[in-house]
């Protein structure tokens, strides 16, 4: 069952177990939190990193690698989504063949990488697989910008949708704080209908984050006028995200394209929803630059969920 634990209590979730830890250290501080908390129960690891990782990211990669004593480092190239899917398929097959538990720290995977991983896990995992997903929440995000210069737009591998020729596009944006990215996606996909969602108030870390989310939604609406429908979605409950999306896409015959731009938990909800509704496409905008120096500060809380919590294990694989 999905539950939250303080970071210092994370190790106690795995008494008498030796786990395999999968993580992706990067420029964010929260990308090392789980490795630090679980280092004494880690038996093996698989560390992912960006092929062109910045100096700041490499510091954390080296730190985690030293912590875990692992040299199983896999490079992910943002320019090669098929290459990423190959790595994730390998990972999924390895996880499904293990009898020990795997814990995946999803906190700092790019959303595209996370979605591809989810797809491969759904494809490869049987009912007996032991796999936890851990997400470290953010206390705060940078106040002015998180990312900029979106230079490529594509569907996520595994979620191509059906793109029926006689239908027009409906873009559904789960908005976070990346206003520019959302705007660029809307302008490049040129949808006939736009639906933009904001996280529900109670799920935001604090009132300031909620107000910021709402303000950005209003700014987006002012750009595109009366064509924009608005909705709210939960940030911590992937199953409920699916319910919201089902309602949002219920009306009219469109090619639905979802752009998850909020946290990893809501992104998981999008992924599971799109797997169950193969006519839906999930899209991704590749950004050139992240505000590495100020991106986020980690909260003292992690969310733990299993593949069963996402309903994936019983999903028929391709």
């Amino acid at each position, binding site marked *: 069952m999905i539950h939250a634990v303080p970071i210092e209590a994370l190790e106690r979730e795995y008494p008498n177990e030796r786990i395999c830890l999968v993580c992706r250290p990067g*420029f964010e501080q929260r990308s090392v939190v789980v490795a630090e908390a679980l280092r004494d129960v880690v038996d093996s690891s698989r560390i992912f990193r*960006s092929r*062109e*990782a*910045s*100096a*700041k*990211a490499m510091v954390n990669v080296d730190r985690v690698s030293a912590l875990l004593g692992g040299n199983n480092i896999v490079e992910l190239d943002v*320019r090669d*989504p*098929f290459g990423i*899917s*190959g790595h994730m*398929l390998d990972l999924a097959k390895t996880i499904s063949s293990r009898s020990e538990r795997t814990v995946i720290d999803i906190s700092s995977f790019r959303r595209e990488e996370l979605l*591809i991983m989810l*797809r*491969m896990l759904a*494809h490869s995992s049987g009912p007996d697989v032991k796999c936890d997903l851990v997400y470290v929440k953010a206390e705060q995000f940078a106040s002015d910008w998180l990312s*900029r*210069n979106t*230079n490529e*737009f*594509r*569907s996520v*591998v*595994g979620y*191509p*949708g*059906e*793109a*029926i*020729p*006689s*239908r*027009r*596009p409906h*873009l559904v944006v789960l908005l976070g704080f990346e206003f*520019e990215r959302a705007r660029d996606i809307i*302008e*490049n*996909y*040129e*949808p*006939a209908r736009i639906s933009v969602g904001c996280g529900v108030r109670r799920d935001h870390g604090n009132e300031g984050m909620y107000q910021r989310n709402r303000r950005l939604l209003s700014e987006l609406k002012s750009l595109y*006028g009366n064509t924009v429908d608005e909705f709210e979605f939960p940030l911590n409950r992937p199953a409920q995200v699916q319910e919201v999306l089902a309602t949002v896409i219920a009306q009219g015959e469109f*090619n639905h*394209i979802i752009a998850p731009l909020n946290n990893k938990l809501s992104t998981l909800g999008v992924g599971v929803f799109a797997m169950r509704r*193969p006519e839906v*496409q999930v*899209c991704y905008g590749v950004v*050139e*630059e*992240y*505000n*590495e*120096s*100020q991106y986020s500060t980690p909260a003292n809380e992690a969310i733990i969920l299993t593949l069963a919590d996402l309903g994936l294990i019983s999903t028929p694989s*391709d």
Partner: protein
Amino acid sequence: MTENPFAVKNPEDLSPEYIAQHFVDMFTDFAKVRNPENSFIHGARGTGKSMMMRGLETAVMLKTRTWTLSELPHLGIHVPLRRGDFSVPELSGPSPSVATAISEHLLIIYITSRLARSLKGLVSLEHGSDIAELTREFSQLFAECGGSLPERPAPDAEPDSNLKWIMDVCDRESTATRQFSRRIPFFRGDTIYAGALCGFLDFLLPLLSKLTSLGSMPGVPVYIMLDDADNLPVVMQRVLNSWVAKRVVDKVCLKITTQLGYATYRTIDGRLIETPHDFNEIDIASVYTKSHDRFSKRVREIAAKRLSLAGIDRTPEEFFPEDQEQRRKLEQIASDIRAEWSDRREKADPNAKRGGNRQTDDVVRYTIPRYMRLLSGSSKSSHTFSYAGLSSLVDLSSGVIRWFLEPAARMYDEVASRQQRVAEIPCHIQDAVIYAWSREFAERLRLSKRDLADEIGGSVPEADGSLQAIGHEGIIAARLHNVIAGLGQFFRMRLLDEAASEQRAFSIVVRGKMAQELGDVLDYGVRMGYLQRADNAAKEAYGGRNPRYILARRLGPYFKLDVSGYAAHISVTADDLLACAHDPSGFARRRSRARNSAGQLEFDLLPTQEDDE
């Protein structure tokens, strides 16, 4: 509140009636587009490409002229190539030969669906047998290509029922083909495709030949307007190029639009398609950059039509009035300049300030710069310069129709929110929207939020430390940021330099061998709309004539420049410009120190072939 007459709408969503009503003939500016040839039409977003393509569509032509179907000069099928439909990595995933075959098949299915959709409602019941015959041909060809079909409509079914059936088959086939590609990431080895494979020569060409041979149809070429082909993956672009290479223009003409990001002109077997042999090529920005009068006329026509359709009985000049107080001040300055010119001529003073040979030249060159200097003086009121007025709005739109419509729409909304009836846009509203719109554009490139024009000698900060990780394109964007910032600073400094004989500059001519890095930066700037490239720069950047790059006038208010009419070219060396890409303020400082013994800024004014840009 009444509908905004300047609202920018997606051309794909507009009805043929709306297009016909609002359409302003652009074909006199781009006559080649209508020729029975293959065409590539290039232009940034908002330059009017899609509206032009919709103007060639059968249903729209029937509404704009008093033609009947059998009298049309061509049959037009508009095929929007949406990013959501084609920017799918799985389509490029399988082995190259599989990817090519699947890509061609999908593209043809897509076009066929649009063909059927374009004919709906156009063919009368008395010609229902023609559509039935077309449907039979479609079925036969599809079966020969390996497809399976549901039961066809009855022989006496209405034309639209047959056309809907074709669309349904296309929808189903598209889904089935994409189902195959969906499985590709899960299998490492070769995947076996067992579905239909339609090709240009064995399916599309014979289908279109059948279409135009039907009694109710004119026996004319079919124009397939493939809109925004940059959205296609490279493998599909090569398929398209292979079709172009076949040059079957007596039957099918391909009209392909791009947003300047088309990746390749190679066919699937590696050959290069070339102009004019295989296609003609039109660069919208280049045409309008070279002839500002033509663009100005088009915008005026568009504005006048939209006002008329909205029931607003004003001319565009009346609806977007100029700031009369500023106009009076400018006229006073112009009068002073005329008097000074006459005085100089009378005295024949060799030490007098250099000026033009004609009095009108001096008035055009110096009136606004002198006024801007006055504003920037002790009163520090540069920000009060007004860009209001139709002429200025046209200048600011830099050859991009949407850049006139978008701010106009915002202005209209602003006024309409305060009053029921909008008869004109007050100058202060025009200026508020224009300044915000210019700033928005500049800040997309993350130009400094400081007023660069007032910080001569200041440096533009680098981005926050993550350039190392972002790869080639991120660095190009950062370099473009620097080039734009440097040029903007320099042009502003020049404007405020009373000693300069040419104070109004808006473009540069690049001399010397251009490094690849600089070429990439300038190309990126053109693609993103921050720069426009003049005709003589098109393919000669690395040899031959010197390329000219014009700063988008939309940036004028941000840098507080004079955006009107004639402006000088400034000659810069490629090395100097590359240095600017790394240190924009250093570039501006160096240019400002490069004075000759007369204390004038040195520049190299190349002879221009036209008086306006």
